[in-house]
């Protein structure tokens, strides 16, 4: 097949086909609209599997590259430049995997303005795939900002009672960070004469102070997105107000864009600054782990609890990234991004399912649900345990490699960071089991909960792929590591060289 | 031959009259005409310079300006008509919806 030439563009822009079809449908043809969106995203997932098929695990460099000059400005060349490597392939797959699941979860939940909802959802998939595939800074920035807009509307139109506040907060926080990144991108591109990431990495040679400033420019943008403590306060509001599918994508993919950015841009472009600032970022990450866990524990709203748990979990990811060498932790971090997408995505689906039935997420008004909804209870338990990081499930593999990697890391104080972060493992059990107890265990005191119906087959189908991933990654993560390893090894070698040169 | 400065003087006077018209009159149509006056002042300066430098660019530019002015008048008058229909007035002081 000659498709291979433009496979990445095809994956990225395929959802446009669905958008086009939906535009011709009447807003009242809800089922048709839903099926179109679902089939489009499934096809996109199929295409991304085709990418996986063509992807060579032995090659650490960018693959399936597509490159064309786009604009020449002030001596800097901006190109349309897509490529995939070990750092991004899993995230691309995560995006195309979660989107159909999220759409399936809206089947009953979204009845209002289905047409607009699905169009925004498909547009968002374009933005997200683009972010993970773009290898040109400007193109990356375009996709980065583009992915913001559909989410803004998903929260602002289909959200809860305080949706406008949450949507604007989400937008402004991210934008404020992005501005700094834009300045850094422009400076870097004009200084080096190119905006292409591989060329920039190859050129290198930035003075240490410059690296530091540019690093901060990028890092703040990404830290807002991750979100790192103390820039996280948009996240609970956005999650609480967003519709379930929006939360799934927000937690599952959008947050990963921040962590991915740190990995792809900060570590690759500014190795010296990374080494210099690694202890600081790791410390912030550790604070975030403990802080998120403690704050999650006292939340009364299930969604807020899960939102703060994301702050804690993403802390692990960032800690792993800035453990630098040996790159066990970085590999763990990449896997943990996938794990968090799967587990937290599933958690939000679960919260959504109970919300659809009871129209409340207040844990005090729930309780004893397991008795009336046994299947729901069992599946929720599995997801919660995976989020706790129980061995044999996905979370553990990631968390353990991150903690072990940062324990061994050469970054100053990192064994202490790892040791303190390991306390987060205890605290995760505290807040998640607290939630499980409040919602599922105990007697059925509230008569409103007595008549709840157990999960419908469609809902089980929504969760099933995620459950499969939970156990697959937990029990046999080898194929996943095989995809990651070569590219990370290359990155680690670059960091190693940078460390050597910065000593001399 | 008339010196360049005469032309420029005339152009400046025309421009200034236009400015005063825009700033002092309240009728949107008059303001519009004052705007045209300013355009023409600019055109006059263009033509004068073209003659002075023996270059055609200035003359060509005048054509551009006139085209744009024509287009602008078409749009502007349409706007004024539309405003008059809804507000029953073309007094610009009464059109202050954009007041902060």
């Amino acid at each position, binding site marked *: 097949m000659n498709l291979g030439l433009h496979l990445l563009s095809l994956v990225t822009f395929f959802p446009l086909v669905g958008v086009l079809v939906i535009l011709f449908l009447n807003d009242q043809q809800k089922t048709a609209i839903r099926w179109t969106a679902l089939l489009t995203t499934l096809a996109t997932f199929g295409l991304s599997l085709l990418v996986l098929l063509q992807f060579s695990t032995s090659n650490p460099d960018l693959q399936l590259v597509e490159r064309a000059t786009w604009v020449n400005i002030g001596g800097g060349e901006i190109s349309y430049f897509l490529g995939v490597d070990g750092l991004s392939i899993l995230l691309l797959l995560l995006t195309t995997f979660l989107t159909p699941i999220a759409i399936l979860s809206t089947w009953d939940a979204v009845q209002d303005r289905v047409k607009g909802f699905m169009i925004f959802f498909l547009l968002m998939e374009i933005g997200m795939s683009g972010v993970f595939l773009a290898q040109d800074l400007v193109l990356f920035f375009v996709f980065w900002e583009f992915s913001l807009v559909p989410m803004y509307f998903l929260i602002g139109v289909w959200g809860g009672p305080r949706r406008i506040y949450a949507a604007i907060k989400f937008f402004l926080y991210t934008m404020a960070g992005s501005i700094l990144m834009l300045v850094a991108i422009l400076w870097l591109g004009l200084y080096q004469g190119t905006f292409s990431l591989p060329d920039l990495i190859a050129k290198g040679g930035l003075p240490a102070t410059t690296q530091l400033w540019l690093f901060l420019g990028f890092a703040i943008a990404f830290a807002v997105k991750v979100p790192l403590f103390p820039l996280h306060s948009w996240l609970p509001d956005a999650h609480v107000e967003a519709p379930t599918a929006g939360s799934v994508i927000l937690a599952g993919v959008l947050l990963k864009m921040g962590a991915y950015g740190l990995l792809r841009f900060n570590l690759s472009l500014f190795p010296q600054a990374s080494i210099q600032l690694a202890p600081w970022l790791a410390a912030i990450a550790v604070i975030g782990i403990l*802080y998120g866990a*403690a704050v999650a524990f006292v*939340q009364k709203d299930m969604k807020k609890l899960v939102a703060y748990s994301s702050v804690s979990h993403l802390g692990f990811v960032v800690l792993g990234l800035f453990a630098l060498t040996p*790159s066990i932790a970085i590999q763990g971090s990449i896997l943990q991004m996938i794990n968090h997408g799967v587990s937290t995505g599933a958690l939000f689906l679960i919260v959504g399912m109970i919300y659809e039935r009871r129209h409340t997420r207040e844990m005090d008004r729930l309780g004893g649900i397991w008795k009336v909804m046994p299947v729901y209870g069992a599946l929720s338990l599995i997801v919660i345990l995976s989020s706790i990081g129980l061995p044999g499930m996905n979370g553990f593999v990631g968390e*353990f490699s991150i903690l072990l990697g940062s324990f061994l890391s050469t970054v100053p104080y990192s064994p202490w960071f790892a*040791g303190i972060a390991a306390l987060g493992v205890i605290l995760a*059990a505290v807040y998640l089991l607290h939630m499980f107890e409040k919602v599922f265990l105990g007697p059925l005191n509230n008569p409103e909960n007595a008549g709840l119906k157990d999960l419908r087959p469609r809902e089980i189908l929504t969760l099933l792929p995620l459950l499969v991933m939970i156990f697959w990654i937990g*029990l046999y993560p*080898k194929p996943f590591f095989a995809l990651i*390893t070569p590219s990370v090894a290359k990155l680690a070698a670059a960091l190693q060289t940078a460390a050597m040169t910065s000593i001399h | 031959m008339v010196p360049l400065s005469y032309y420029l003087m005339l152009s400046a006077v025309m421009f200034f009259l236009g400015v005063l018209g825009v700033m002092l009159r309240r009728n949107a149509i008059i303001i519009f005409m004052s705007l045209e006056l300013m355009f023409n002042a600019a055109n006059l300066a263009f033509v004068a310079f073209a003659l002075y430098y023996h270059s055609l660019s200035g003359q060509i530019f005048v054509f551009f300006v006139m085209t744009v002015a024509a287009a602008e008048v078409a749009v502007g008058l349409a706007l004024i008509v539309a405003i008059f229909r809804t507000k029953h007035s073309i007094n610009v002081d009464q059109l202050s919806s954009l007041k902060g």
Partner: protein
Amino acid sequence: MYFNLAPWVIIFPLIGMVVNLLVGKRLGEIGIGAIASLAAGLSFGVAVLLAFSLAAHPEAVTVQVAEWIPIYTPLGNLALSWAVRVDTLSVTMMLVVAGVGTLIHIYAIGYMHQDVRHNGDPGRFRRFFVYMNLFILAMMVLVSADNYLMTFVGWEGVGLCSYLLIGFWFEKGQDGIGNAKAAKKAFIANRVGDFGFLIAMFLIFSAFGSLRFEDIFSRAAQVAQAQPGIILAITLFMLLAVTGKSAQLPLYVWLPDAMAGPTPVSALIHAATMVTAGVYLVARSNALYSLAPVAQNTVAWVGAATALFAATIAVAQYDIKKVLAYSTISQLGFMVAAVGMGAFAAGMFHLVTHAFFKGLLFLSAGSVIQGVEHGEKHTGAAHGSAEASFDPQDMRNMGGLRSRMKVTFWVYLAGALALAGIFPLAGFFSKDEILAEAMQLNQPGVLVFLVLAAFLTAFYMGRQVFMVFFGKARSDPAAHAQENPPLMTLPLVALAVLSVIGGALNLPGVHTLETWLEHTIGGLQPAEFILPLALLALAVALLGIFLAWSLYGRSPLKHGQVDPLSKTLGPVFRGMERKWWVDEFYGKLVIGPYHALAGLLAQPVDQGVIDAAGNGLGTLTQGLSAWLRRVQTGFVRSYALAVLAGGVVILAYIIFR
């Protein structure tokens, strides 16, 4: 040679679990129970075959199953496999787990049949056996691992099963949430221990570059020479894990609450197998502990202190299962003290015999409870709901069950005597071996603690037997108690036989178990049989029983009478009864402050500072804009004036610069 069968010890329970999960609903109770028991039994069969193979070929064999975590980096690899390690130590554990496990599965068919009806949800019968098979699976993973991380998988896996089974009746217990809270407490206390395990693994990996047992133990001495501190750190952090899982000071608090689970669970998980995982871990890591005398001493002292401490609490409990729970903690203290002193074989020996007699005691206690429950139903039908708050586990409500539940009484007696260490029952030999080792290894302090604990053990077991079985019934349900069906009593008899003859495993002078374990644990010294010490231990035990008889046997407790011991001991008894206020202490010291801190972070800090900072920036901008908006007058002509002024300024700048 059957070594290749080794993975099946894990696979059989897995199959049983999956079958029951998928088609259990159609099988009926007998079918479900049969499949689950068969799964455990087949697992036991495989373990027996492995034991035979090892008898012929005692060298450890590792069977690779699959690669698990392969992280290769230029500066170090983390490469681990799913692999089953077959050696004398792991097979000993497998035999105990699957053997006792199978008996308990069979017993549970009968027990749960009644229990699910008593608690009003027969649908949960299947769930119980799914959990039980999952537990056998996890426990097998734990004991058969060939690296620490896989051990950890089993370690947390059994913790999960413990969580699920303690909270099996999650809508029951105090205020309806008591059981669920007990389950959470168990999981979190264990997680604190697991934190120690994690750190120990990090330290091991940083010192040895591997988590595989073989790599670590073969190079332990070398590393100890280079970095003596690291071995100490490893072993101490591992001790934290042990105190969590094996319910030692200071993390033991979860085990008494864990009695909220159905009784077969208490027998299997919280007495016979899971809680001994800590002892197994120390025995498994013997190569490391032998190199860190300080850690060894610490372990021994933790064990000895726990043994005595828990025994004092057991003396003053009224709940039949709580007595056994504290007794378990105390006996685990014996084992931990043994392995801490370096007497690994003695510790393992006690582990095995304890699995027999404590499993037996719990199961018989379950039999007693159901007998009384049966009586309760009987009388409840006669009297209406007169005694709504009747507690079928409270020993003050029992008495005189000897004649009504004959089989249960005799097996209970066997178990109690074995636990008290009466010659020639299993407990006598295993406990005596630990005491002898303490003497031989020159640990007089530990010895004194353990002997005192042994005295208390005999006393509280005597108290329990007299209170439950002797005298007259102190309540109507007890008077109408009924013996249980053979499905439940037969496993009891089997375990009773094991409790009686279990000592033969490692008779003084023969040391079968010791020789067997020596293939895996190097440097074992068989304990000498010290006759005076053995006689002393026996005398102490008899004294304890005599004292119990004089207080509770000679003049049996009457209905509503206060415990005679409380008169003699006064406030000390009250302390023991209230468990020395340890739970309250933790509540004040740990749980309360964490709640307060989390509340502080969530409201004043997160909402009041961090979120407010963001929103404050927004408000500031709004204020600024509100001020600036006045510039927009809405008069087109003033805008034009501004444009003109701007133009003039720019022109002026260009001209006059």
